[in-house]
């Protein structure tokens, strides 16, 4: 029984509806007739039939009440098969040669323009500022810190995909508008894309969607390991958006027209308020969780088990009169380990360490150069690398900051410690070589 049916990928975009007509006729000639299309997923079900010529018609219909429209089409000889988004798919009834569903090219152009193009252009216009935000990273050099988090790395990776797709979509829409206007002027039918190009656009669209989805999911999973609370808080506004969208969808269907406007306005207002409150809470939560300047034994414990430098590494016993301490760690596909620790102890001093273990020496080089650029305003001098058995060393004398790179490790130190004593050099060399306290 199952051999009589075949499920095929269905990636056609709405604007390619005229190509769908040809595709279905081609499939019927091959012996497969369309039965249904999944409303959410891009798959269509075909049944095996005797190869034959069947007339199909695909129309665009965007109005809510479709009963009388479908009835009219049925009366005029078209049998409704199924819908996919705004596409309504019909086939000619047996022994019937019905007139096409659209017989006026200008009316058809207006339907397509208001139902498809205007709706698709609006999101593209909204996406434009976001595109410039992404482009900014490429045009003005990107901040090496984006390499530290999954989400920012994801955005860096998605930027060219996103920009490319937005530009292509906009160009395609504009081309369609121009071709359609020209067709109306010349009293021809609206542009009919080739089945091949329509299929290609479908594959492109769904590949893009899958890439975005997978990247976003993986980056959120990765980021969840770095900062679970921040990820959960950041997801909250999105959740409000989804809930509001679902409520509006239900309202549209269930409530009669007179009450609908009032209810929809109410849902919108509640959603906007909830969204705003959540956004404020999100930003407050993120800033609170990001600032971990609260001195705690937990910070010191975690630092002691990480490749960061503490005052006790230089001075031995340092007492317990802490003024502050802070510890942060994260990882990403490009930076496998990142630790940021600083502490201050009364009557002893203070130290700050940033430890980066990059995926490879190239990424380590980007981080090294990024830190140099970030501190370019301070006077600096290159130190002979062999002093620390490293690849590159830079010293910012005014702020007593030391930047060292060795293989895939970058170490950035700052504090009121003399980094050039023999003891200090040994401690730093051990940390760079990964032979510090972790090995003890």
């Amino acid at each position: 029984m199952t051999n009589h049916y075949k499920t095929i990928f269905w990636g056609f975009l709405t604007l390619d509806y005229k190509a769908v007509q040809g595709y279905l006729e081609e499939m019927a000639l091959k012996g497969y007739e369309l039965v249904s299309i999944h409303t959410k997923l891009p798959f269509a079900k075909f049944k095996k039939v005797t190869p034959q010529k069947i007339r199909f018609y695909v129309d665009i219909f965007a109005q809510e009440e479709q009963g009388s429209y479908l009835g009219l089409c049925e009366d005029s000889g078209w049998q409704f098969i199924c819908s996919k988004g705004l596409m309504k798919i019909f086939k000619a009834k047996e022994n019937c040669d019905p007139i096409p569903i659209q017989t006026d090219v200008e009316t058809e152009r207006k339907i397509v323009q208001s139902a498809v193009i205007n709706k698709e252009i609006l999101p593209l216009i909204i996406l434009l500022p976001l595109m410039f935000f992404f482009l900014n990273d490429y045009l003005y050099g990107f901040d090496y810190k984006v390499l530290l988090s999954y989400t920012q790395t994801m955005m860096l990776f998605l930027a060219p995909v996103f920009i490319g797709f937005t530009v292509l979509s906009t160009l395609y829409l504009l081309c369609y508008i121009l071709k359609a206007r020209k067709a109306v002027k010349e009293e021809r039918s609206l542009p009919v894309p080739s089945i091949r190009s329509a299929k290609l656009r479908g594959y492109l669209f769904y590949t893009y969607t899958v890439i975005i989805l997978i990247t976003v999911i993986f980056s959120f999973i990765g980021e969840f390991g770095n900062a679970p609370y921040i990820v959960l808080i950041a997801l909250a506004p999105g959740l409000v958006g989804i809930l509001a969208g679902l409520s509006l969808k239900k309202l549209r269907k269930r409530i009669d027209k007179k009450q609908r406007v009032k209810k929809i306005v109410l849902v919108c207002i509640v959603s906007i308020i909830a969204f705003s409150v959540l956004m404020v809470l999100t930003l407050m939560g993120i800033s609170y969780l990001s600032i971990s300047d609260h001195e705690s034994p937990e910070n010191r414990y975690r630092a002691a088990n990480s490749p960061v430098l503490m005052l006790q590494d230089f001075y031995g016993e340092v007492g317990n009169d802490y003024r502050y301490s802070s510890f942060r760690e994260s990882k990403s596909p490009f930076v496998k380990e990142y630790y940021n620790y600083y502490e201050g102890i009364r009557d002893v001093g203070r130290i700050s360490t940033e430890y980066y273990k990059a995926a490879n020496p190239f990424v380590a080089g980007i981080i090294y150069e990024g830190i140099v650029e970030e501190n370019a305003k301070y006077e600096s001098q290159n130190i002979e690398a062999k002093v620390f058995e490293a690849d590159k060393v830079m010293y910012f004398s005014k702020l007593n900051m030391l930047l060292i790179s060795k293989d895939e490790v970058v170490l950035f130190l700052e504090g009121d410690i003399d980094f050039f004593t023999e003891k200090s050099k040994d401690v730093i060399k051990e940390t760079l070589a990964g032979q510090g306290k972790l090995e003890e």
Partner: protein
Amino acid sequence: MAREQFKTLTEQMYYILLSLIEERHGYGIMQNISELTKGRVVVGAGTLYALLSRFEKEKIIVQVKELERKKIYKLTDKGYRLLKDEYLRLNQLISDGKAYFGGDSND
């Protein structure tokens, strides 16, 4: 707005309005146009539905009743005036053309 939008009617618009001098449902309009023009003008279901929606929005036609899920429309006074104006305009075109072609429409 309606005058501006429907300043001149397309052939299909003209025949739809002409059919709605009498109360008719969608398919009835399609059949009437086909009979009236002996099949020369045909209006597809999608085109008809879109135009009826536009006419109704501009109060050129009005739905008078619904029978067996079929909406029945007729012209409003505004629609009648619009159609009459178009009829007079077309007549004017014919009479202007007569100065050159005389009464022989086959030339």
